[in-house]
């Protein structure tokens, strides 16, 4: 349970691109072919190790439906990383990326690490969006890119872990203010300078208007 850092992630993208399945594969290592529509925002967590440090990933899996957009938007804040997912077999999900990106940039802090993920790479036969297109989009917008398959688990671990690595690197570089929880990063209990006095940091957080 003890961790050095806690990173908050958010998974966004059109409905049906496989956001919940990615999360399920990452946290539970299983795949559910029939998955109910996500109503609202769901939540998953897993420990990973980067650079010998235990890092807890707290992942918000949002509903992709347009009608839930207002609810999910409120979750952008306080996320250190975002997985922007599209479905390689559906071009419209790729076309909507710009909207999603704008949304994310607008509602989150500017340092948020965004990874572009082309999911369902196992359905090569039905591919509608070329890998090169995804790469080009990512290059253009300064994102990390990866194609994954929640079904076969290909690249799923890597997607989450690479994002964490990127965030970790940014912490090392001093880009993130780790004392501001609004950045989606929390220092673990054993790293806290005074764990017996959480009131002071709590007060600070309140003042800065966390969440």
């Amino acid at each position: 349970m003890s961790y050095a850092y806690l990173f908050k992630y958010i998974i966004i993208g059109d409905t049906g691109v496989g956001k919940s399945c990615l999360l399920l594969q990452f946290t539970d290592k299983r795949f559910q072919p029939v998955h109910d529509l996500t109503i609202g925002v769901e939540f998953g967590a897993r420990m990973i190790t980067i650079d010998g440090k235990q890092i807890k990933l707290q992942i918000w899996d949002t509903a992709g439906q347009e009608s839930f957009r207002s609810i999910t938007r409120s979750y952008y804040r306080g996320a250190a990383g975002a997985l922007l997912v599209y479905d390689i077999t559906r071009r419209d999900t790729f076309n909507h990326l710009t909207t999603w990106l704008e949304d994310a940039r607008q509602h989150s802090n500017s340092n948020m690490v965004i990874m572009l993920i082309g999911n369902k790479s196992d359905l090569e036969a039905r591919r509608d969006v070329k890998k090169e297109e995804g790469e080009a989009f990512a290059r253009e917008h300064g994102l990390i890119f990866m194609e994954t398959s929640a079904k076969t688990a290909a690249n799923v671990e890597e997607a989450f872990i690479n994002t964490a690595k990127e965030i970790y690197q940014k912490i090392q570089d001093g880009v993130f203010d780790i004392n501001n929880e609004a950045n989606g990063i929390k220092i673990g209990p054993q790293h806290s300078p005074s764990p017996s006095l959480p009131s002071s940091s709590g007060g600070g957080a309140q003042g800065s208007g966390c969440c």
Partner: protein
Amino acid sequence: MAFLQWRRFNFFDKEILKDTESDQVYDKLKDVNISACVSGRGQLIVGDHEGYVYLINKQLSLNMFKAYEIRVSHLYQLKQHNLLVSIGEDEQGINPLIKVWNLDKMEKGGPLCTRISRAIPNNKATPVTCLVVHENLNWMAVGFENGSVMLFKGDVTRDRHNKSRIVHETSRPVTALEFRTQGKNIFLFVVTEASVVSINISGKQDAKNTLEQFGGKLGGVVMSDHNQDNQLVVARPDAVYFYQSDSRGPCLAFEGEKLRLHWFRNYLIVVGKEDKTLPRPVQLGGQTMEMNIVTVYDIQNKFIAYSAPFPDVIDVLSEWGCVYILGGDRKIYQLQEKDTQTKLEMLFKKNNYTLAISLAKSQQYDQEGLIDIFTQYGDHLYSKGDHDGAIDQYIKTIGKLEASYVIRKFLDAQRIHNLTKYLQALHKQQQATEEHTTLLLNCYTKLKDVNKLDEFIMTKDREVDFDVETAIRVCRQAGYFEHALFLAEKHGKHEWYLRIQLEDIKQYQRALQYISKLEFSEAEKNVKRYGKVLMAEVPQETTELLKRLCTDYRPTDKPLVDQNMYDGTVGHIEKAQAENFIHIFVNNSERLTEFLEHMIRVQPNSPSLLYNSLLELYLHDIVHETDSMKKTERVRKTEELLKNPDAKYDLDQAMVLCQMNDFKVGILYLYEKAHLYQQILRYHMEHDDYVNVIETCKKFGQQDSNLWVQALSYFARKEDDCKPQLMEVLSQIDKKNLLPPLLVIQTLAHNSTATLSVVKDYIIRRLQMENDQIAEDERLIKQYREDTDKKRAQIEELKTTAKVFQASKCNICNHPLELPSVHFLCEPHSYHQHCFESYAENDSECPVCAAENRKIMDIIRAQEQSRDLHEQFHNQLQRSQDGFSVVADYFGRGVFNKVTLITDSPARQTSKSPATSRYV
């Protein structure tokens, strides 16, 4: 996809609560102006605007007491203590009073009130909006309309030693307060209309954490149970939000205006306003009542467990395992949850197995029930053609569901992947039988999935969850010999290992190495079994192994004598018996020779079989060897072997062998050894080896003189000229007097070549000897005749003429003879009578002649007796060289006398003879 809602089921039965006695709709609350409701500890508690508190127990009997003078505004029932905390007013104006009631102590007119205290923050009169009491009875919080929260610390049941303080102040009314205990920390959630705040009140300083800048309305807040991590649930029109003590949690987008939230078991019950599209106002007593929708959500499994409209819901209570909805019509509606089995059946009907499984799990359904679901799900997926999915489900049934049921379904070749997966799981769970192993391995081999096979078999340090022999067999059949070998080696199945090495991959060298690593008894057994093959392929090494097996495998050297004496019973344990392995060397005499030589060298008193075999080998070699050099060498070796005093070959067999192979030296040596001189002789004869015939006769004539006779007849029959030899033989026969001349002549007569000159000397000599003999005999005859005549004359004389006794002296005492005297006719002899009487044995015999007479008499008698001993006669006759003389001798003894004597009276005849002798 358009349905932005969870699946909907009907897992609750709705029922209007009826009076148990009258069976009428329960209406005792008909006229009660309800202000607050609470439940717990076996009763429903309702407060009203008249200051009364009503207690309804399971039997629906109603008890009431006056709690406040004016009204009851809030009630809080503790779960672990039978305490009721209430807020109400006793006097006009805003002056709320907290009262604590001990429901266990009922007095006249109501329960014991243990505490009364005022709830006025900072002396500002403001209505109370909410109340919460911590179960540890140490904390109590009251929220006010003016946005302040007052926290009481200390024993809740008493007024004294209580400290109260304001922990939160905002401008918006407080709508909900909840305690949450997390380890040692106690948090107080404060929900106002505009924010959600958590305050850690257990520290020295309150630690506040604003979780959200949106709030909730009165009634729209509830604490979830531990399944949902004891989160605070806040209802807002767009969604239901969850909060941890330190951060925001997930949210569920249930749209619509929500009036109340309630938590029952793992369900979230939401009372919402009905959609405007379905206005169904209910007329009741002239009043128009709005319809509310009560929806029961299963948060964990994500479905709607129940949803139905109720008229103007006042509150939702849960007690006695059911949910009670207090309607605006003052009726109490009971929602009874259906049992799990019923729910599952409903899900099965809709083929919603995934949900059924998670539901069953969350309801702590037992293992068998779950497996039943897995089976049904598997069957369902299978019938839909989703074999991959089906097998996943079937795998979960392993251990309970009969494996063959599943296997039969997937035996089709196209589903072999699924079958493999299932069988693998079966093995992993140690449920596999032999047949399963066979099947799995067959699958692997059919799929040509070597990696999997490797993993299955080659993984070291893994527990074996399959039948090894079966695995070996299948691997072998499928041609995966390496795997089979690995298994066999690992599990010590020597026989399998060797069979595969030898019969399948023909790695003889390795097989041999393997054998040499084995324990003695195993090694011996296996060498016996596979020795032939090994010998055929790797003779050198096999021979070496055998040598070791028969010698070095024995740790302690036992005295060699034991070995033979006990017929290997002692030595058997450690040392193989070489003769058992001889058959292995079939077709490889060279190795066998090597082996046997080694064995004999190391253990000189090996059993005769070894020697026999070696001998046979040598002989065989000699016969087939063409190189003369080598042949000589062989012959030398063979001779050595034969002459080796230690060699224990079987004489007869050796002889047979030598003869079969025509090994002259050996044959002769063996004859000699066996004292079969005749055979030696005959051998030479057969080979017409005159010199050796003579030699043999000379050499062994001492032991068996018959040799000469045979030699004679041999030479006699010879057509060739062999005079010298004949001469030699004859001289020997002559010297030793081995044959009567007549026979010699006869023998020689057969020979057409033997001329007179050869036998002349011999015959002459012989005849000379005969003549001499005849002359001698005649002389003796003559002498005897003369003697006989003399005796006859004497007798005649005695009979016819008188005898004059002129002796003057006594023949005994030698004194002058004087009367009375006795005279005998014999010499004549004369005695004094007294001398004769004292001296003679009887009175009819002359004492002087008696001894001589008796001797003669004895001879005669002996002759007569032995005459009857026919056996002896035959013996003598047979043994004697000259039978005639024996017969003659017996004539002399009067063999045929008896016949003449039978006619006469023998008794008298015999008795006469002493009488006559008296006068002789």
